[in-house]
């Protein structure tokens, strides 16, 4: 705050706790500064001096102090020292106006009479006492406790509580002979006289006994009063002296002498006056209880000091003469008041105490804290609440600090300017002059901000939604659960430890996450493509792949992070879209791993159409031109040539890693981790951790992208559901059903709610103007504007308003109905209105956000839109939603590993399931597989799964079967299953949901001489040999693999995802069988994503040779003289290489079944490659757009066993969200025919894509069209096509749309 010159705001924060900022800014011993972490660099930040600067710059009396409404109870405070003032201040803020009784003629306690003006000017104290009395606190000076005023009197006068803050004003005697002589005075008495009268008789030669600040204060006063010699006598050394170093220094500067290691023994008296002091020298012995070394007299070292004034200042204590006899007020053995340490309540009901009288002499800040705590207690006491509840002393365990930068430069604290020594004599002008603004700001700049938040509370003021609660505390809760799902995510790799990329030092080297922000409309440059150093558009950008991934040398992340290639391609394409100039975007990579669904196509497009450059390379170093901040990158290309290229911006494609706190969580939960610190899972239980009942999803399971994370998440939910199905619905609450009010025939009473959306709308559009305009529209009975109409409290408010104002139609002018309509409709339902009596109009996405430069026109547009919505909503009628019973039976099509997993999960969750498999056995393609990447035996695990399917009494297995008909809709499907085993049999089944797990098949190639030689086989054929343990495999001397056979080709432009890992795994298996075998893998990019990368590394270590080829230079396979020969161009040498192989394995593509009939049955779509299209690529990967139909396995996309099983479970999980319901509601916005108008032309029946209209078969309207509301999607195609005008679309009927059109042009 001070750094920014916000002195008023700074004072406001200080004064939340402290009523005396200027006082404490001068005299506080600032123990806080000892804790300052800048001490580790040089000196602490001068926190006290900065607080003083705030109080110097802004008059604290002008601070607006918020007080609770005034209360009637009276509270008396005895003593106007810091404790009394603080309790009065805090009581006043809580609504209690107290009365302070002060014994002396002036208020302030020790602040007034114990501290001389050169340290604390009177005016400062006066001002700050004034700010307290300004709050309504009454101050009565010259009102000591005594015969005329006792504590009992106060209670009798009606004070509900009394606070004692008498302080410790009585000096402690030295206990030496002659102490009673004239010329001997207590330091506190001396200071009191000086402060109250401004004068005193000081004598010529003064000795002061003591080493605290009082002794120094006395000495410095004595100097100012003109004493010739002022000497302090202290029994220990300077090191032990409790006075502050700067005070000691100032005293010495002003001429005070200090005698260390000396103690007084006797006051020498002449004619009744002090004439000298006998002292003895001391030495330091063993440490005493305070840890300081105890001073011990040195024998025979007595000496005499010539003095005429002696002022002992060795301590103060409570003068208890006036309170000794108060009933139930008890004292400790040290003579202080006994109180509860938390509440400061004495043993007497309603009597509280604090400050020096309770602690013994201490610092002002302690007394102020005690006063604040007592005020809290007094309020609770008055309210009859528990005074100590929730007030345990604050302890901060393991505070988290930002590390101090290693290169933090030393910058000592700013010197406090002082009054010149020669100007100090004879006056009490303030010595410490305070920082000026400039040095204060410079001092504040020294703060390292190590605590992250500086608690300036500016965010609290700025947040319109009051969402920020600073003093929120962590709460421990215990919840009983049957299962735990871990989805703690990952941390982007921090590249600052790599010096070769210069991330820490070069402005224009950023991470991919930072690039995402730069490309975002809500990012630092509002979506403009700019670089950080100069905010200029970069002409050349480089992306560097595998930063913190696939790297065992510089970091320990040997795995592939799976997502970086694809996001880099995406960022490059988007950057090019954002740049309206020729942008050179280049991606520097080792292998391009675009193995996800439709990713390869995106890569091809980026390379060929968008012109993104892809450079296969290794980066050597990056250097920055200090003048231009451009970057010079040195790299070697595939051929080993060293190239230096200049870039304006370099993006580091950082990988995913598991941060230590997640590893720690795993350790606490006793979960095993993999080599890469991911949760250990098996291929057959891909979301189960090593601990029963604990499941995992997302990047903690392994580095993965969004679709796979969503699949895992659903799968984990299913896994938990399988073990908890018995307790389903036992902890759910049933929503209270509000009866719907019949508004049919009622005159419209419309409520219009205009949303500000914080500043999103209100920052552009004149929201109150729109609101007031809405009030002028017909039928509008109520208008309001809301900060956030969607917030829960506004929803509750709206419900009440609808009820109390009898509204029967509602318009919300806010954001988009696509996201928020259901929320507001629910509010209508809660208020007893049909949810279709609602219209939402979009004044944010389609007005304020897109017209921010013309607020007036945007406001006009908003008014028009509100008018159109009001006109339409007046015509809205309550609509009915059909309620359909859900058949709690599932159909799973496909008995492969995904379908079986899905069926098993559905059955385990308690649902009857039909599993339909077209072949004669379960297992699908997994029957051909040998082992998983974790060396798990596929056949054994597959048999176990098949066995469980066979044993399940919930699963009806239909082998050799297909479905030949599908009727119905979500919750109510009906199909015929045709079984061809011997005689053809048919069975009709009813089911609520369907899962399509129809799999995929291996591609059989025409190239590479496949089929012409038994030595040339596919990957699956090699697996079969492994399964059969074919002995000939051991005899092979040379084996070769060709990757991407049929994949990533122009007519099949997708990656089959599993083949790289499969070939490497099989190559390693061959090596196991014959370690001397020469093995060659001919590849285009190795795509061993995630921890599969470890296999790739192992393969290279075992001597398997990887040779890259390109699509335009594919390997040639020939058979000459019985020899199987491969010719390939070596990518490093650029020379042809001849390999003789005994076995050639072709890693062939996975191709979909392309079952058009099935797709038509369920009205689901397939992509260009023939894989099914999911509802949403990222967020709905395991379900179709058609309600009640789900998707898993290779019918979605090629995938390995673990991912197929996860998706099988995921589909089941999604299905259960429907199956677990008793009923489903259809939409009310459906078409309806008016049969009397229908001419029975049949056009609607012909054009409806959902088969909703049919001719009525019987009754008075036989032959006319009628629409099944359950099948109708409400598109309105039939309405527009109906030449008779017989069809109405509820919610979007002609009159409603015309009303909007007619309202367009009304003069606003």
């Amino acid at each position, binding site marked *: 705050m001070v750094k920014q010159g916000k002195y008023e705001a700074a004072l406001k924060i200080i004064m939340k706790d402290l009523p005396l900022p200027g006082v404490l800014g001068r005299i506080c011993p600032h123990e806080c500064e000892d804790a300052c972490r800048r001490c580790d660099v040089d000196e602490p930040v001068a926190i006290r001096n900065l607080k003083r600067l705030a109080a110097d710059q802004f008059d604290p009396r002008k601070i607006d102090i918020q007080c609770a409404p005034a209360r009637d109870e009276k509270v008396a405070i005895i003593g106007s020292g810091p404790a009394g003032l603080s309790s009065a201040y805090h009581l006043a803020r809580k609504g209690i106006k107290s009365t302070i009784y002060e014994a002396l003629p002036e208020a302030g306690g020790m602040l007034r009479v114990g501290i001389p003006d050169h340290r604390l000017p009177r005016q400062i104290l006066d001002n700050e006492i004034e700010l307290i009395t300004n709050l309504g606190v009454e101050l009565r000076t010259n009102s000591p406790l005594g015969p005329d005023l006792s504590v009992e009197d106060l209670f009798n006068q009606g004070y509900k509580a009394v606070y004692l803050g008498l302080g410790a004003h009585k000096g402690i005697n030295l206990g030496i002979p002659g102490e009673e002589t004239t010329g001997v005075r207590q330091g506190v008495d001396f200071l009191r006289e000086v402060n109250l009268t401004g004068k005193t008789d000081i004598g010529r030669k003064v000795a002061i006994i003591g080493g605290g600040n009082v002794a120094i204060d006395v000495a410095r006063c004595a100097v100012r009063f003109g004493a010739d010699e002022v000497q302090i006598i202290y029994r220990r050394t300077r090191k032990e002296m409790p006075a502050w170093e700067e005070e000691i220094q100032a005293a010495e500067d002003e001429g005070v002498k200090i005698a260390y290691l000396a103690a007084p023994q006797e006051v020498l008296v002449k004619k009744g006056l002090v004439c000298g002091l006998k002292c003895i020298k001391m030495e330091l012995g063993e440490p005493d209880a305070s840890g300081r070394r105890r001073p011990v007299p040195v024998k025979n070292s007595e000496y005499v000091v010539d003095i005429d004034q002696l002022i002992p200042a060795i301590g103060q204590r409570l003068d208890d003469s006036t309170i000794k006899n108060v009933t139930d007020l008890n004292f400790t053995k040290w003579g202080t008041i006994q109180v509860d340490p938390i509440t400061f309540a004495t043993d007497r009901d309603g009597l509280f105490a604090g400050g020096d009288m309770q602690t013994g002499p201490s610092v002002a800040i302690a007394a102020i804290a005690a006063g604040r705590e007592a005020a809290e207690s007094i309020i609770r006491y008055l309210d009859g609440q528990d005074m100590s509840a929730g007030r345990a002393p604050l302890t901060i365990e393991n505070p988290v600090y930002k590390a101090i930068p290693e290169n933090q430069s030393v910058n000592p604290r700013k010197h406090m300017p002082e009054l010149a020594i020669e100007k100090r004599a004879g006056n009490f002008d303030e010595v410490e002059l305070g920082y000026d603004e400039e040095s204060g700001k410079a001092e504040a700049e020294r703060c390292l901000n190590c605590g992250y938040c500086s608690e300036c509370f500016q965010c609290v003021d700025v947040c319109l939604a009051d969402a920020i609660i600073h003093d929120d505390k962590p709460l421990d809760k215990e919840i009983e659960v049957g299962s735990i799902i871990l989805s703690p995510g990952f941390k982007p790799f921090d590249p600052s430890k790599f010096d070769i990329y210069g991330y820490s030092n070069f402005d224009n080297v950023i991470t991919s996450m930072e690039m995402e922000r730069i490309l975002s*409309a809500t990012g630092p440059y509002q979506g403009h493509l700019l670089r950080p150093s100069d905010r200029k558009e970069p002409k050349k950008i480089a992306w560097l792949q595998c930063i913190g991934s696939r790297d065992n040398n510089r970091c320990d992340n040997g795995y592939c992070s799976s997502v970086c290639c694809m996001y880099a391609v995406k960022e490059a394409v988007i950057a090019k879209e954002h740049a309206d100039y020729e942008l050179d975007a280049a991606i520097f990579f080792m292998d391009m791993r675009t193995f996800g669904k439709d990713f390869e196509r995106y890569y091809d497009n980026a390379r060929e159409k968008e012109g993104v450059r892809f450079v296969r390379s290794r980066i050597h170093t990056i250097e920055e031109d200090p003048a231009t901040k451009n970057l010079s990158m040195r790299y070697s290309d595939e051929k080993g040539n060293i190239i230096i290229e200049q870039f304006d911006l370099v993006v580091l494609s950082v990988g995913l890693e598991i941060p230590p706190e997640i590893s720690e969580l795993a350790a606490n939960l006793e979960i095993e981790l993999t080599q890469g610190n991911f949760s250990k899972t098996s291929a057959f239980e891909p979301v189960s951790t090593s601990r029963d009942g604990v499941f995992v999803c997302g990047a903690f399971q392994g580095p993965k992208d969004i679709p796979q994370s969503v699949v895992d998440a659903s799968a984990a939910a299913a896994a938990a559901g399988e073990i908890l199905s018995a307790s389903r619905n036992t902890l759910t609450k049933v929503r209270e059903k509000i009866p719907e009010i019949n508004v049919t025939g009622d005159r419209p009473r419309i409520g219009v709610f205009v949303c500000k959306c914080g500043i999103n709308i209100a920052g552009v559009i004149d929201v109150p103007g729109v609101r007031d305009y809405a009030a002028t529209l017909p039928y509008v009975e109520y208008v309001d504007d809301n900060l956030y109409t969607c917030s829960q409290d506004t929803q509750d408010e709206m419900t009440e308003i609808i009820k109390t104002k009898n509204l029967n139609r509602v318009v919300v002018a806010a954001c*988009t109905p696509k996201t928020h309509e259901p929320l507001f409709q629910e509010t209508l339902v809660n208020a007893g209105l049909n949810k279709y009596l609602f219209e939402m109009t979009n004044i944010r996405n389609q007005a304020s*956000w897109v017209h921010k430069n013309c607020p007036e026109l945007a406001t006009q547009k908003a008014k028009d839109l509100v008018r159109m919505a009001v006109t339409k909503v007046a015509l809205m009628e309550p609509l009915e939603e059909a309620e359909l019973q859900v058949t709690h039976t599932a159909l799973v099509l496909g008995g492969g590993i995904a379908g079986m997993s899905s069926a098993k999960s559905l059955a385990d969750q308690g649902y009857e399931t039909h599993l339909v498999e077209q072949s004669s056995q379960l297992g699908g393609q997994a029957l051909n597989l040998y082992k998983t990447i974790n060396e798990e035996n596929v056949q054994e695990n597959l048999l176990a799964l098949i066995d469980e399917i066979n044993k399940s009494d919930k699963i009806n297995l239909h082998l050799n079967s297909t479905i030949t008909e599908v009727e119905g809709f979500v919750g109510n499907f009906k199909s015929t299953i045709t079984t061809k085993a011997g005689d053809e049999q048919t069975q009709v089944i009813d089911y609520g949901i369907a899962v399509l797990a129809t799999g995929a098949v291996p591609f059989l190639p025409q190239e590479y001489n496949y089929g012409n030689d038994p030595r040339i086989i596919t990957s699956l054929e090699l697996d079969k040999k492994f399964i059969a343990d074919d002995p000939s495999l051991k005899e092979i001397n040379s084996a070769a693999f060709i990757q991407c056979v049929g994949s990533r080709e122009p007519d099949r432009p997708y990656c089959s995802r599993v083949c790289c890992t499969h070939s490497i795994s099989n190559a390693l298996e061959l090596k196991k069988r014959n370690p001397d075998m020469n093995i060659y893998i001919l590849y285009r990019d190795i795509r061993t994503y995630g921890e599969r990368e470890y296999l790739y590394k192992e393969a290279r270590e075992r001597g398997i040779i990887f040779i890259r080829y390109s699509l335009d230079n594919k390997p040639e396979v020939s058979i000459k003289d019985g020899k199987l020969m491969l010719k390939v161009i070596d990518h490093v040498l650029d020379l042809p290489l001849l390999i003789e192989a005994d076995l050639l394995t072709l890693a062939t593509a996975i191709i979909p079944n392309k079952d058009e009939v099935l797709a038509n049955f369920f009205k689901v779509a397939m992509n260009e490659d023939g894989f099914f299209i999911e509802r949403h690529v990222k967020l709905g990967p395991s379900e179709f757009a058609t309600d009640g139909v789900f998707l898993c396995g290779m019918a979605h996309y090629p995938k390995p066993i673990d991912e197929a099983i996860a998706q099988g479970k995921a589909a089941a999980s999604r299905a259960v969200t429907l199956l677990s319901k008793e009923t489903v509601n259809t939409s009310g916005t459906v078409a309806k025919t008016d049969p009397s108008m229908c001419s029975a032309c049949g056009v609607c029946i012909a054009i409806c894509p959902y088969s909703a209209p049919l001719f009525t078969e019987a009754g008075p309207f036989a032959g006319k069209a009628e629409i099944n509301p359950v099948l109708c999607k409400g598109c309105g195609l039939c309405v527009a096509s109906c030449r008779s005008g017989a069809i109405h679309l509820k919610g979007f009927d002609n009159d409603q749309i015309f009303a909007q059109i007619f309202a367009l042009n009304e003069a606003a």
Partner: protein
Amino acid sequence: MSDWEPKIVSFLCNWCSYGAADLAGVGRMQYPPNIRIIRIPCTGRMSPKFALAALREGADGVWVSG
């Protein structure tokens, strides 16, 4: 240059173009405020009468998108 500003009425499909108009907002793309959007459930709902009505009401252009 005259001060004339066209009035455009657009009928946008709820599932595609209306969503696109929302996204244009999310992306803070700026365009002139001359357009008034009417959300329809599908462009299949669009009737020629709507376009004619809009023109009769003073629209200078009608845009149907879906």
